[in-house]
């Protein structure tokens, strides 16, 4: 399990878990699960284009993620445009399917991009992943106080001059960066489960924000490590354990709360 070829996988898992744990905690706090589901999924055509052109998927994911941030931020200022968002999302997904149908491994690539391939991480991509992950964590932590205040008392935050719209944009950018880290490893569909499951359990551990955030990261690390280990032992896909384990974390959190 700790053979040389697995070391890159463990390193990637570590980066993904820390990023998802931190950003996910803010997602749960701010009730942003819709954005956290749509943003990673919307990067699917970016990853598909990267596969078709033979470049690193993270680059395509990051590009589409940032475009998605602008779109969601702009649409979100006009209320909750569910229909527009849902139709944009299916159009992006269908385009990604079209791009992948031009490659010679259509089904395998669809599977890898939607559900992840943790063993496919190369050492060369670890540096970029670490950089994007650090960016996402730094962005979220820099906004710790304004994001917290904006979630609990939006009026007070505005009165204190905390420019909620600007922080909302920064927060969405943090989700997009976290997606760039996580999508190549756990897939466009399951990135969401890894962000939200551990965080919804972490908030039940303590009422103090800093402690709950630390708990959320610790649970994400445990979930990721457990998923990789089980995946190694059973040969089953890592996303299966991440998705079901994330739901288990949420159920545990609900029971504790």
């Amino acid at each position: 399990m700790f053979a040389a070829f697995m070391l890159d996988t463990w390193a990637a898992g570590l980066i993904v878990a820390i990023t998802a744990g931190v950003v996910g905690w803010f997602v749960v706090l701010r009730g942003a699960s819709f954005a956290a589901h749509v943003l990673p999924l919307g990067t699917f055509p970016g990853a598909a284009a990267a596969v078709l052109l033979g470049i690193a998927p993270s680059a395509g994911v990051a590009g589409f993620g940032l475009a998605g941030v602008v779109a969601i931020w702009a649409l979100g200022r006009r209320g909750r445009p569910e229909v527009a968002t849902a139709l944009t999302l299916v159009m992006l997904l269908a385009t990604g399917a079209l791009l992948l149908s031009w490659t010679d491994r259509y089904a395998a690539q669809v599977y890898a991009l939607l559900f992840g391939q943790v063993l496919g991480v190369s050492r060369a991509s670890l540096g970029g992943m670490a950089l994007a992950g650090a960016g996402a964590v730094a962005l979220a932590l820099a906004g710790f106080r304004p994001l917290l205040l904006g979630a609990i008392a939006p009026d007070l935050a505005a009165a204190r001059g905390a420019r909620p719209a600007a922080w909302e944009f920064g927060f969405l950018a943090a989700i997009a960066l976290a997606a760039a880290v996580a999508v190549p490893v756990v897939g466009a569909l399951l990135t969401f489960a890894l962000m939200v499951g551990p965080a919804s359990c972490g908030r039940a551990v303590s009422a103090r924000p800093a402690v709950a955030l630390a708990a959320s990261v610790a649970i994400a690390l445990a979930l990721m490590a457990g998923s990789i280990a089980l995946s190694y032992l059973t040969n089953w896909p890592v996303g299966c354990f991440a998705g079901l384990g994330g739901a288990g974390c949420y159920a545990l959190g609900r029971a504790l709360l």
Partner: protein
Amino acid sequence: MSAGWFALGPVGVALAVSFAAAVVAAVVGVFTVLRGQAFAGHALGDISGAGGAAALLFGIRPLAGFVAMALGGAAAMALAGGRRIAERDLASGVVLGAGLGLAALFLYLDATMSGAGGAASTVMFGSMFAIPPGMVLPAALCAVAALAAMAALARPLALIAVDPDLAASRGVRVRLVGFAHLAVLALAVGLAAMSVGAVLATALLIGPAAAGLRAARTLPGAVALAAAIGVGASWGGIGLAYESYGWSLGWGGRHGWPVSFFVVALVVAAHAGAGLAARMRG
């Protein structure tokens, strides 16, 4: 239903199944959009993929798998939902995550155990020309059942969408009707997933319905227009995909483009067109 249905070629089967799926999805979709449940519909579509994958693994009818899993997901969401909207979104999302975890597992087992290498693209993005002819009759029966249920639910649902309190005071059992709607929604999503794939089912459910609501002035008009747009986009998509076998665009030589891509593109175009028409009318 004559025996001739079973003698259809791949294109005929695709036309028949997509017709049933488009009509049901459009009718159910109008009420889904009115009640602001687009996200729930999208989540049920994704979850139904796990059922489609399991059906391939165990050798049962794909439609049964899609519909059963969507029904299970609807029940889990109804049970897990909290009071606050943010909490309900979170609970739906977590059910979605668990369903997708199962989908990942079943698709992996499809590829390794039963040698169904194309399972991931077939289940998630649809493969309309590969639907077996035996699916036409079950799909038609499902469609008839869903439309009959919607006929009974239409009035109370419209009342609830306008004003839940008024509906309750008129003797509508809001929770029961809501749950029945979720069940019919699962049926519609299962049919749509069979036709355009699990992650794209939202397109047939939401797109034609929203376009119908934009362009028509009355509710029956919106339902009729939505059904027409859904069928038009599906059949147009099938025709374009059939044509695309002759195109030499794209990498990897000549082969058809995915049907679902054309269907989704036509649906989105119709939605944009309906918006334009409504704006020009003022």
